């Protein structure tokens, strides 16, 4: 009996160690903590481990999206697809709460929220009708109603959902 208990304890110890390692390990790899109160330009508020921008980049602490665009134009150093869209939102003055509401447990944001600010999808499709090789905002499959979130991710790199089957070379903001 005694022997058995020892064995169990040993196994438990090993398992706990493994568990601890996993927890610690994941901590090291963790994404930056999302500080809800942080201003969009205050990179260091969330990016505590490593600076988000190179040292030669001007201080962004008090910048908003308009200030970024003083240098980053469409033609020169385009930001499209470079920054996660949540950052563009924050820099543009759209807080976490604006999409997720006041909560400690943010849920996924339905497309209706996007449309509420950005306007009807049909209008968007009209605006992008000349994009080559084809209009990204309408298709024979889903019309203009494909969920925005399928391409425009907020907290990770956006993707080109069409690319599952097509070779459309879109730059997704």
């Amino acid at each position, binding site marked *: 009996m005694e022997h058995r208990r020892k064995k*169990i*304890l040993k*196994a*438990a110890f090993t*398992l*706990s160690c493994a*568990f601890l390692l996993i927890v610690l390990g994941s901590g090291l790899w963790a994404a930056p903590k999302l500080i809800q109160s942080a201003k969009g330009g205050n990179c260091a508020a969330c990016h505590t481990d490593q600076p988000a921008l190179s040292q030669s980049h001007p201080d962004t602490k008090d910048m908003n999206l308009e200030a970024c665009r003083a240098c980053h134009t469409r033609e020169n150093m385009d930001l499209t697809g470079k920054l996660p869209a949540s950052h563009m939102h924050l820099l543009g003055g759209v807080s976490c709460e604006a999409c997720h509401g006041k909560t400690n447990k943010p849920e996924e944001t339905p497309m209706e929220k996007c449309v509420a600010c950005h306007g009807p999808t049909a209008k968007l499709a009209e605006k992008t009708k000349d994009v080559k*090789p084809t209009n990204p905002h309408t298709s*024979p*499959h*889903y*019309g203009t109603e*494909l*969920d925005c979130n*399928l391409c425009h991710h907020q907290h990770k790199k956006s993707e080109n959902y069409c*690319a*599952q*089957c*097509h*070779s459309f070379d879109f730059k997704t903001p």
Partner: protein
Amino acid sequence: MKKGDVTEKTLSRRGFLKTAGGAAAVAGFAAGGLGFPSQAQAGPDALPKKWDETCDVLVVGSGFAGLAAAIEAKEAGASVMVLEKMPTHGGNSIINGGVMAVVGSDMQEARGIKDSPDLMLADMMKAGLDMNYPELAKMVAYQSKDAYDWCKQHIGVKFTDPKMLLHMGGHTVARSCPTSIYSGSEIVNKELAKFKELGGTVTTRTYLEKLIRHANGRVVGAQIRTGYRFPDAGSGKVKFVKVKKGVVLASGGFSQDVAFRMTQAPNLVAEVNSTNQPGATAEVLKEAFRVGGNPVQVSWIQLGPWASPDEKGFGLAPHFATGPVFSYGIMVDPKTGKRFISELADRKIRADAIIRTGHAAIGISDDEGQKSCGGPPGTVGKLVERGVVKKFDTLEELSKAHDMPYAAVKESVDNYNSYLKTGTDKEFGRYLQPDAKPIEKAPFYAVRLWPKVHHTMGGVQINTSAQVIGLDGKPIEGLYAAGEVAGGVHGAVRLGSVAVVDCLVFGRIAGKSVAKMKAWS
């Protein structure tokens, strides 16, 4: 082994987990599904302690078949849940070319084409090498007109002008009706609209993990995952759904499931591309087998001969290949410059013939032929712009660009042109379109053709009421299947444009049958 041993082992194991602070570990086992599972057992499934949701009918999949079943069941008064594991509805149906084989359509009538259900049945059986379950194939041929009328009149699907009626490979006559936008989305989106109008919803990102088959043999529910993120097996939240009438499996085929595909056809390695959407995987089919469904012809996997290696997925090339090349042009082996197969043979014969040459075939057409190209408006232009179809001033330039012996290519074209005059293809006995003109008018067009995995004919056995048949030859109570997940309708080879009608016919049958089932409580 004594009974006591098992109990002791089980208990000590449980004790161990507890001491080790094992809640996390237990959860880990459950989520990871380490693979000792109920799969091995043939007996009944454990019922959950609590059902999270209840419905009469649970439909798995939101393509042609699933939505047809959902509409019929809903209209018969059943409460219906439709699950879709992907973030968008429609499965493969929504990227499908949208062409439907129909006997006796108004399009055939307008064109004065004589046809009969028996003729379509004979075409299906011939291509299927008589491996089709005749009673299932017959349902499709005989109910095609009814399904077409349902599409037009009941859910408002629009088809093209009769002059665009297609004559597809393996069919004796032109009977394939394209939807107005040459996409299955025209049907599937109208089905969805109808289902919504009836008060139904499709729950996307919801995965069927397990069917629950009661000790009495009946399928009584399902274990699902909501908020699932394809393809992460452990994602989402587990829920149990009590299903009072029955589950309809309409989960499609497994063309994109390389691992399972290779267990059936080892030569279909990952490098062989597919026309399908990424969610065309086998887990629901495997679940049907696990609960005792009888597997039918699972290794019969179809490759599409009209696919181009120069674009992704199904693409647009199939539209160009089907009309301008196969009906109004020719296909040659670039090495010899000669035709090597009837361009209107069934898909398997053509795909096998291309693969046997060891390289992509070259489809040739001219300015007259390209007019027969289907697809969305501007398809030829888009194909040329994307470099999938290439345009040349002379046949000689076309041959040179593809490393083909010009003299042989010229001879092939001249031969074909002479057959048009006599009305007989002396080489391959191909059906010649009565309105075909000789290939002689510049510009000339070329497309490279190399097959892609397109359709899985096999699946779980069903009867004419769409009930799943078990290994014991008897229907599994409370379990239905329709569309590509079911096997037997097409036998060895499915003819082009017969999948759409198969899905609609059997989807509707499944919906009607399951609604009639007596609810359990």
